[in-house]
């Protein structure tokens, strides 16, 4: 469960609105149920008190919204950034995608966000309410009289289980304790795939990617995908398409998507979160991250502003493309 509370965040937002530091607030707005939270702009205390929420379902990465919102908003925007959002924030600044001066960033701690699918896996469908009680989540359904008590860890989203950092790397102000970059096992799944035979890997990805419906949610939610015009929407690019017309198109889309964000992807996990077909897209991004760490030294996109991503950098001693496999084959 989150240590920082909705009330603390509202107080902060109200204070910053009151003293004129910011003119609006980018925050989470409550939904129909207790988990369907929508990002929204709040302009005053009244709106905040009525609709602002903060709970274990506030997973949306706000950084990307700043690209559009800073252009539209008069004055500064207050944005609450979870540690993983701050990496995206920095990466976007590295790419000059928004004006830093137009944002007042408040770093907030995050205890990991819940995955509603996991909640439903345990409690079943038909959720009528989710209440947060101390360290537990009480889930009531239409079909059981007593609520099911869930521990946060039972329903933690994959990206949060493999959280890479609890440290806010960008902020004007930090609420709560300063976290640390943590050791995660985020590459375990990638390693598992690497250990498979090519046939097994092909079968795995064929199965996963064949589910793609080309809704572009992965791209549109991705804070690295902020292109004014995506190559996949541009009829002149030669790769434009609106549908996964066949298995090649699926692979093409996902390879190029991952390649375009390689070195820029902060591993925030939004792509996998939003995929309606539960394709583990983060495993593509993480493969690039893992490879580049191994080939060219550790690099975390967004850890600081202005860093040079591995694919726009080089050393004269880099390994050869063929050596990628020699290395692996000798390791095995």
């Amino acid at each position: 469960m989150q240590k920082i509370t909705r009330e603390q965040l509202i107080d902060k937002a109200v204070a910053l609105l009151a003293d004129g530091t910011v003119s609006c607030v980018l925050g989470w707005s409550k939904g129909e149920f207790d988990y369907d939270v929508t990002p929204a702009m709040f302009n005053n205390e009244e709106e905040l008190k009525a609709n602002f929420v903060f709970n274990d379902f506030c997973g949306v990465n706000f950084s990307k919204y700043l690209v559009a919102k800073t252009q539209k908003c008069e004055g500064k925007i207050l944005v609450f950034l979870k540690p993983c959002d701050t990496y995206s924030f920095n990466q976007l600044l590295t790419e000059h995608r928004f004006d830093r001066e137009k944002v007042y960033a408040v770093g907030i701690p995050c205890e990991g966000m819940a995955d509603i699918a996991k909640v439903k896996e345990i409690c079943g469908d038909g959720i009528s309410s989710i209440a947060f009680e101390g360290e537990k989540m009480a889930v009531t359904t239409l079909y059981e009289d007593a609520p099911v008590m869930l521990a946060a860890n039972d329903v933690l989203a994959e990206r949060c289980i493999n959280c890479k950092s609890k440290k806010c790397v960008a902020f004007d102000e930090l609420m709560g304790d300063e976290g640390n970059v943590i050791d995660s096992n985020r590459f375990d799944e990638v390693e598992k795939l690497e250990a498979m035979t090519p046939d097994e890997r092909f079968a795995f990805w064929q199965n996963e990617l064949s589910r793609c419906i080309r809704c572009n949610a992965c791209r549109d939610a991705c804070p690295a995908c902020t292109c004014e015009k995506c190559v996949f929407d541009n009829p002149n690019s030669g790769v434009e398409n609106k549908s996964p017309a066949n298995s090649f198109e699926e692979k093409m889309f996902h390879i190029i998507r991952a390649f375009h964000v390689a070195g820029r992807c902060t591993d925030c996990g939004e792509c996998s979160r939003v995929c309606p077909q539960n394709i583990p897209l983060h495993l593509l991004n993480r493969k690039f991250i893992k490879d580049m760490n191994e080939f060219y030294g550790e690099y975390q996109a967004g850890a600081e502003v202005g860093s040079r991503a591995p694919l726009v950098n080089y050393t004269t001693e880099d390994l050869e493309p063929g050596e990628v496999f020699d290395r692996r084959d000798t390791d095995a």
Partner: protein
Amino acid sequence: MQRVGVFVCWCGSNIAGTVDVEAVSEALKSEPGVVFSTNYQYMCSQAGQDMIIDAVKEHNLTGIVVCSCSPRMHEATFRKTAAAAGLNPYMVEIANIREQCSWVHKDMLTGTEKAIILGKAAVAKVNLNTPLTPGESPVTKRALVIGGGIAGIQTALDIADAGFPVDIVEKKPTIGGKMAQLDKTFPTLDCAACILTPKMVDVAQNDKIRIFSYSEVSEIKGFVGNFDVTIKKNARFVNEDICTGCGACVDKCPMKKIPNEFNLGMDNRKAIYIPFAQAVPKVATIDPNACNMLKNGKCGLCAKVCTAGAIDYTQKDEFIEEKYGAIVVATGFNPISMDKFDEFAYNQSKDVITSLEFERLTNAAGPTAGKLLRPSDGKHPHTIVFVQCVGSRCDACAEKGKEYCSKICCMYTAKHAMLTRDKYPDTEVYVFYIDVRTPGKNFDEFYRRAVEEYGVKYIKGMVGKVTPEGDVLKVQASDLIANKQLRIDADLVVLAAAIEPDKSARPLATMLTASMDTNDFFTEAHPKLRPVESPTAGVFLSGTCQGPKDIPETVSQAGAASSKVIGLLAKDKLTGNPCVASSNELMCNGCSSCEKVCPYGAITYSDKEFRMPDRTTKVRRIAVVNPAVCQGCGACTVACPSGAMDLNGFANSQIMAEVDAICK
């Protein structure tokens, strides 16, 4: 839709021997856009070219495909042909059916099939060609030489000789550089000053050359032919135009204990000084850190004695903006610091010196008036140990020294050893070396003379430790050939310190967007074929800023660099290669990925206002390619995630069309 003409060349039997040219021209007739297709014995001949010109006129062709030899051979020819026919020269594509088809495949069927496919690819590409016009930019007919050592001096003189104005920016109060500090030069043993100072005078007297001494380059903008440079002229508190260099001020200056940089601190100078007698410009300079008048307003003697009234304590740094067409980097070198080489006791004993200090000790204008005397007690040294490769070829000790060979040390050490034995035959001279490298005209002969005629004791091995004991330096070394340890009591130890690029080079490279290697030497545009040009157009390299060099090499490179500069400045306009990158501003994100991979610094950013669909406006950062600087490699096009960046002549759509045609 393009109207394409296809011309298949037989190249005598070179192509026609393995490719059915008739079948190729026939097959290509039915390709989209093709309205005319033929074949001929020699397309490159006058008759062949006339055939193309006639066909263009007769069939209103808008694009031409020539199936012939490599484009590296005749692309230029056929572009000229197209121009003669009134077409844009870039509406030509070549299908290489000789080098990459008829010459490598033996079978007629195979050769013909492949030739058709290559032809189809060329047709597919030319269908997407657009007329390209090379950009033109004017050339400012003035060159800037950064650095006033022998490299800069020679470059400036050569450029000026061709009639172009040149400015030299030198950060020291005088030009001359390292060569001015040397005594004799190998392998001819003529005196450095005797050959350098006349050149310095030439520079001073040349009305095409301006010297900005005691100055630095503070900003560089622009591109080849059109650089805007800001030069910071440091305040020297002496009006250069008035100062006669009489030296009266220097005589009267009470501040006497300032270490003299020119003699590497082995003697002292005044707070107001002229570095050496032949300095150019020969004007005094006040050291603001030493001058009492500048520090606390108490003194003013120099102003009193200056009859010319040149002293100006209120002088300020001055910024001069000037336009240049070309920039030559001649920032030179320095010996590396000996601080990390404790084993040689450089910091413990005054009698352990570097080779450059040795030059000053043997120089008639040096601190000892040319007598070889120990810095510690002024006595004649009787045993001298020279240590080579101090910090050079340092594989294991990369953090202390350099991995590369400093190139000049073998020869100057041989010179030092020989001259010592010549002047002071009673002196024992040892030289410790890893290898003696003497590739150069008369170099090995010179070294052999040192050993054979002058009895210099060359020992293969390194000195492990130098320990000062009383007035003796205990030298511990190994003789690798005799395989034994040696102990020598030396009076003087001379270290051949590695050389490194001057510290000013790195920030300068950033300003120039010129690339450097990991050792901070400037990189050439091509290591073999364009060794005096930087990859950044309009930036040239002279002397040791590019790599270790001796004087003759430096002078020849200076000459080469100047001829490149002259070649550039001789043009009134620069015609660019039109196959350059260009960014579609509607799609550009301004993310800077392209800029990061551009080897030429051809990409800059500007903020542009766009009208948005909802009728608001939005200011967006967009990339702008300078076509005069871009060389057309295409690195940016792949770095660009949105595909906003594309390359003229090799557009994404064109290459994909070729792929499609080949894979049909």
